[in-house]
């Protein structure tokens, strides 16, 4: 990859289910396992709660990579959530790629509460790959981002007026 990417620090969003992957990430911390500081974890009750539209929104807003992580199939705290996750994201991953998204930018992974080292490994690997392919320019629309800023400001003003 070109040298322009060397100083590039990607931002990666990780949807983590409360019961497995979030606990796995906590375990990585408790075990003082280090990984690149580029990920931001968003806690959800279950990977089955992760609407594919959240992923689209993140790409629209210019995220460089998204991971949807949950319990291994069979271990879902809610019995079946991750089986639906598996179906949804097997399809969504293919659709995103069909739309031209780089395959490296979106992943689904199963990481259990005891897999602190796996969490470290997945994040390190994903960060490395995304760093190498550079910033995400696809699906992102600066106009949208500006509009979103404007909307947020407007809402705020509206709130203040109240």
């Amino acid at each position, binding site marked *: 990859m070109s040298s322009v990417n060397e100083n590039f620090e990607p931002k990666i969003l990780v949807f983590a289910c409360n019961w497995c992957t979030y606990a796995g990430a906590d375990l990585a911390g408790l075990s003082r396992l280090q990984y690149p500081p580029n990920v931001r974890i968003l806690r959800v009750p279950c990977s089955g709660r992760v609407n594919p539209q959240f992923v689209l929104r993140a790409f629209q807003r210019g995220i460089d990579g998204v991971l949807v992580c949950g319990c291994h199939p069979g271990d879902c705290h809610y019995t*079946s959530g991750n089986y639906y996750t*598996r179906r949804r994201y*097997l399809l969504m991953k293919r*659709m995103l790629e069909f739309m*031209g998204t780089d395959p490296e930018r979106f992943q689904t992974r199963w990481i259990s509460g005891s897999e602190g080292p796996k969490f470290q490994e997945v994040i390190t690997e994903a960060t490395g790959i995304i760093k190498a392919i550079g910033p995400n320019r696809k*699906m992102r629309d600066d*106009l949208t981002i500006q509009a979103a800023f404007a909307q947020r400001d407007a809402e705020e003003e509206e709130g203040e007026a109240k």
Partner: protein
Amino acid sequence: MNPIAQEMQNIAKELLTSGEVTAVIGWEKGTFWYQSTPVMITSAEEADKLIWDEFCQPNLSKYLLDYRLNEGKVAIFVKGCDARAFNRLLQDNQIERQKAYLIGIPCPGMKDHKQAALVEESAKDSVPLAKVCQSCRYPNPVVYDRLIGSEVTPRATEPDFSDVMALEAMTPDERYAFWQEQHTKCIRCYACRNACPACNCRNCIFSDSKSGWISKDVNTSENQFYAITRATHVAGRCVECGQCEMVCPSNIPIMLMNKKYIKDINDLFGKYDAGIDIDTPTPLGHYKLDDPEEFM
């Protein structure tokens, strides 16, 4: 008048006169020679309006949603894809089977009205079939109360994914450029959604900017969000009637995305055709313990 149209009119008259149904939904001739548009008639006298020609592509089943509050029965004419659409609406609890009287018509395929618009009526024979019709596997209605004419041989036995595969063969950047071009054209008129029998929410999330999912801005990014989300919402539920693409004023190849999902569903979870059997759960409405595993 062709014999099918004649029979359609006779049946409509009979049903309306006897009072078995209070309305009949069919097609009438539109403003242009290449337009046949949906019509709803409520009296036997109006039955003469009904026609059957190579432009009767509008899928009538969705119009049943407009008559949900109708107290009597409504009769509609169903081609293969209208019948699948009818099953779609049944499976989504949107209509009641006993409130509809289905008159099936085996369909020889409809002509591409957009191509027809470019030529004179005299050149009608040269107008090709609409794209979805060319590879139609279910020209015969899968559900009906009464059938007009005799069943026809399907033009295809296997789904045609050649256009999907052509796109899959490109690089991500090429694919992105392709869709970028398409979605830049989108004016977000939502005609594709309105025509789709799988789009039957009371309030679409895209109609309500307060839903938080999308802004009113028409720009490529928001259009893409809409396009992918629309395709995802109908994934596993698309009956391949092609209405979305036919009504698109910007000529976006919308069916390409629907077919991508159909192809992947077939490959990943086993062959599934929506709107054939309403008792089989939709691909995204259930799961199997041994679904393919790629996420270890």
